[in-house]
């Protein structure tokens, strides 16, 4: 029998449904999460199964309902807070950075905030500057938060289940361009630990460390490169914090060339951190400087030809890898 395939969105929904069946403390709130099932229809059917007591539409008050999530988590629930577009995270920053991230530490370990914030990232949906950003670096910067970036339906299900069971605030970023991506997803209950990278493709000549949607870009580039005789390894950290430094460094030492790919801004961003980790851990094994590829340092423009050049693509990554490998 062939493996069952689900879309990324279906995998997210299945993870939520399974966790809600397993644990009555899990509840969802956010804007249009109930009957509407979110604009992306990721949550369709959940309110029908679990009721309006556990799947709650909120007012358009991101700061308010995020704060409610923090308090609900402290007082015994396992809320999954839905922030429709990652750009709206700016409205939640005090609740996430000053409250959720610090409650455990500031209370000397007495209070816990087991909540998940689900949100989106990613450009090229023609949504312009306020619906296209990838702001996961901001949260990766803050002690007390965990940040998850699934790149496949399989990872989305396993990582989300782990995030819900985690005792800490976890921010879970879904690339909205990947919701229709299909892949094998087991029907049974499984979890993927946070902080364990996945080598998505084994290679010898160059390592592409990629997150979220960029994993798919890296895999596409690796296919092209293979035809040219360049063997690319694709490493997906899956979580920016906790970060599996060892797997990344081991791959860098093996291949000696690394491109780091992430859809957030490069400056002071995830690619900067990953490049630093590689420089510190694999410097003497590298044959070339680590190359960073991320969103251009501009607000994401609306006009399609402009928007398309702001993020790394299969072509630009292939070209960069080709040029790095030729330099030897």
């Amino acid at each position: 029998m062939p493996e069952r395939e689900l879309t990324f969105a279906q995998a997210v929904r299945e993870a939520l449904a399974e966790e809600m069946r397993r644990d009555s403390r899990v509840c969802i709130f956010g804007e249009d999460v109930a009957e509407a099932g979110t604009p992306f229809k990721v949550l369709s059917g959940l309110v029908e199964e679990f009721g309006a007591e556990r799947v709650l539409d909120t007012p358009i008050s991101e700061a308010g309902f995020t704060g409610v999530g923090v308090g609900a988590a402290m007082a015994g629930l396992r809320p999954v807070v839905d922030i429709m577009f990652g750009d709206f995270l700016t409205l939640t920053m005090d609740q996430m950075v000053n409250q959720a991230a610090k409650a455990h530490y500031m209370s000397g370990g007495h209070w816990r905030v087991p909540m998940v914030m689900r949100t989106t990232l990613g450009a090229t949906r023609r949504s312009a500057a306020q619906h296209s950003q990838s702001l996961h670096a901001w949260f990766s910067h803050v002690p007390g938060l965990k940040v998850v970036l699934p790149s496949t339906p399989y990872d989305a299900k396993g990582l989300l289940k782990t995030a819900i069971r985690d005792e800490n605030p976890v921010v879970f970023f879904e690339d909205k361009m990947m919701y229709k991506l299909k892949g094998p997803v087991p029907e049974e209950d499984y979890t993927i630990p946070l902080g364990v990278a996945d080598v998505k493709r084994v290679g010898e000549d160059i390592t592409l460390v990629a997150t979220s949607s960029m994993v798919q870009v890296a895999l596409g580039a690796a296919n092209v490169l293979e035809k040219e005789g360049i063997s690319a390894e694709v490493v997906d950290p899956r979580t920016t914090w906790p970060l599996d430094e060892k797997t990344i460094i081991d791959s860098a030492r093996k291949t000696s060339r690394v491109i780091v790919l992430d859809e957030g801004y490069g400056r002071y961003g995830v690619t900067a951190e990953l490049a630093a980790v590689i420089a510190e851990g694999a410097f003497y094994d590298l044959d070339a400087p680590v190359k960073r590829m991320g969103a251009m340092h501009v607000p994401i423009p609306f006009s399609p030809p402009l928007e398309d050049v702001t993020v790394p693509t299969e072509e630009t990554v292939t070209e960069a890898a080709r040029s790095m490998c030729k330099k030897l």
Partner: protein
Amino acid sequence: MTTATSKPHARPEAATEDKWLHAYRQMVRIRLFEEQVNELYTRALMPGLAHLYSGQEAVAVGICEALNIDDYITSTHRGHGHCLAKGASPDRMFAELLGKEAGYCRGKGGSMHIADPATGNLGANAIVGGSVGIATGAAFAAKRLGNGRVAVCFFGEGALGQGSLYEVMNLAQLWKLPVIYVCENNMYNEYTHFSETTAGTILGRAAAFGIEGASVDGQDVRAVNEVATRLVERARSGNGPAFLQADTYRYSGHHVGDINREYYRSKQEEQHWKTERDPIKLHGRWLMTLGQAAATALEQITTEARAEMEAAVKFAIAAPYPSVDQVEQDVYA
């Protein structure tokens, strides 16, 4: 339900003491706690910032005496009174203020972040209005879990400037959450009179959401307790949130270092509140006349509270600092 004898409490004397005598004791304990804080701070024994609650004791005590030990509160940067009134013990509070391991937060929170699950204290908060979501969320959890608890969200009138307050008030009313928003109007947003920062009326804000609103003389512990009891019982029985405006006064500056205050309020004003409107004096006078308490009983309470606070300070000063290797502990659960 409103008698001290019928509910669990952290302090043993509450089980036997007359309710109003106990309220007096609690207010005196807070006042003397803050006197010690002032002393510690001015003697440079206490690091950081100290925001004293003196003058506002009747609010914390009147409300917390209407709560059960497992009801939730969230507090503010001016939070020592709320913590004590909810049942925290002064020795561990002082230890926290001095950054000692024996403190409620093992020294990691300090004066502005005391939290204590044993007394339902979700934490003091150094962001003005920062805990309004937490209190509302705790009320959501209480309702969802059906455990009968209520949440009280203490904040000063300065927090009326924060938009997130109105976001959660809207939500609490829509979802009929058992939360009571307690606005302690001590009239000064730091160094600015609230009339300069607050358009409209305070209770008008509650009315806008159809939330049950009430105002009370925050220097009258019995009046505060009476209205709090009503609002708490109302919330507990599923009738939704309430908003209480308690008018009060902050005797000291915004923090201990705020000494020259005449550019924003007069010494006469401060003196008036201290002599005419002091919650401890007012309640003590009532106890000695209508409350049938002897003056010696009140003196006895003060003597005991003073001894308790002195011993607590001694404990905190002698307590060790956390070892440096604890700095990375409890970042994650």
